[in-house]
């Protein structure tokens, strides 16, 4: 009886020891039951205070820059500033005012009289009302050209005409035609046609573009569409020819009138 009890006690002790076997991982817990997870409210509050101060400073700096930029601007530049657009012959301060950006957003490289402004961080590039500004070139302290980062690549504005809607459409369509030509050369006619079609939406009267589209459609064995495009090409040429003749005649008429005037003057002088 005693032996049985002893055996039972031993088995019990062994079972207990087995239940609470040695741990294989001995790591001190970084957080245990009953501990507290700190609230992030104080960290957020400190960021809020810091942000408010920074924003106040940035707003004051921006407003001062805007006031200074507007104080000495030509009418065209002033209008561009009000619209939030870049314009040729702006100063460095006016560029920042037009893009509502701070000095810290730009990296300015100077070489003698010239300077180039580029975005300091590619992921937060300054932008004006038209788009993301990639580069601004200054000569003699005034903007001589600037470029936008657009889906077709960089679009450069170096003349007032480039900044208009027509100028922008021209630059975009040229980029699309270039892209289409490259794709065509690479044998990707479907994508090339897509680029030409998009360019055609911006320049519907371009005879050569119509011809390019017609040829591609012809090569893709789409005769109906190709013949429409060929006709459109010829029609555009006719219109251009008429316009050219009209222009030539206008110039000729001017020359005839001038010649007649000169004959009268010269005859009078001879008398």
């Amino acid at each position, binding site marked *: 009886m005693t032996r049985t009890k002893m055996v039972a006690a031993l088995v019990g002790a062994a079972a*207990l020891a087995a*239940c*609470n*076997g040695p*741990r*294989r*991982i001995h*790591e001190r*817990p970084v*957080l*245990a*039951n*009953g*501990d*507290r*997870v*700190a*609230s*992030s409210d104080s*960290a*957020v*509050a400190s*960021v*809020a205070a810091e*942000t*408010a101060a*920074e*924003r106040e400073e*940035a*707003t004051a700096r*921006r407003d001062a820059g805007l006031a200074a930029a507007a104080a000495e601007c030509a009418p065209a530049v002033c209008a561009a500033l009000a619209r939030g657009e870049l314009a040729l012959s702006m100063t460095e301060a006016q560029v920042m005012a037009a*893009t*509502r*950006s*701070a000095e*810290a*957003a730009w990296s300015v490289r100077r070489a003698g009289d010239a300077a180039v402004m580029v*975005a300091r*961080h*590619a*992921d*937060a*590039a*300054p*932008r004006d009302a038209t788009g993301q500004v990639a580069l601004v070139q200054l000569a003699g302290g005034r903007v001589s050209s600037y470029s936008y980062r657009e889906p077709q690549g960089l679009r450069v504005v170096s003349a007032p005409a480039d900044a208009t809607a027509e100028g922008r459409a021209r630059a975009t369509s040229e980029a699309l035609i270039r892209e289409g030509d490259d794709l065509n050369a690479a044998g990707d006619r479907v994508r090339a046609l897509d680029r030409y079609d998009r360019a055609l939406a911006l320049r519907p009267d371009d005879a050569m573009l119509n011809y390019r589209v017609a040829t591609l459609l012809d090569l893709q064995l789409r005769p109906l569409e190709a013949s429409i495009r060929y006709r459109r090409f010829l029609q555009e040429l006719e219109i251009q020819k008429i316009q050219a003749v009209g222009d030539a005649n206008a110039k000729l008429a001017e020359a005839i009138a001038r010649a007649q005037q000169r004959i009268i003057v010269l005859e009078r002088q001879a008398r």
Partner: protein
Amino acid sequence: MPRTSPLPRHASARSAARLARRGRHRARTVAIAVLLVVAAACNNKRVSRIEPTSVTDLSGRWNDADSRLVANELIEQSLGGAWSKRYAEAHGGQAPTVIVGGFGNRTMEHIPVGTFVKDLERAFVNSGAVRVVADAGERQEVRAEREDQQANATADSRARLAREQGANYMLQGEVQAIEDAEGREKVVYYQVDAALVDLESNAKVWVGQHKIKKYIDRRRIGW
């Protein structure tokens, strides 16, 4: 055969009956006591309000403490990052606008990701460093209300159409888990990744991460 006295016989019968009665009475008392104990054991529910910031690990699965740890870490990393300052510098001090996108749970466990995502959203708004716009689900209700106002609200009080603030960045992320178990021991590793993606360029302007490793030891008897 001499007759034995009948009196003791009667007395023993009486005492036996008395004993039986006493036994029955005791049995009844014990039964009542057991019933009382059982009844008391059935009604052992205890509810108490405890501090929401306290760590209370019961099963070892994902819980509120993990959610808060992740939220705190992501808040610290995102608000401490340079991305919002860069944006403000390039945009006249304006705060960047963020929309909450998909936050996937790629674990086998049920993890309500909304708890820490909402904490992060709250921190963004309260800090003033980041603006947050209603996400795809929330804005449907707002748009429906705005549409309704066009027909039913007075002209001076109705919200105008097409005045929504467009977001610059989208917050996306996911939770992943790796489990390793042997016998009664288990290790669960959670990795929470979050990123802010530029909606125009797809560039990731900020990436945050938090890792949690749990060791679960299921002892049958422990002290």
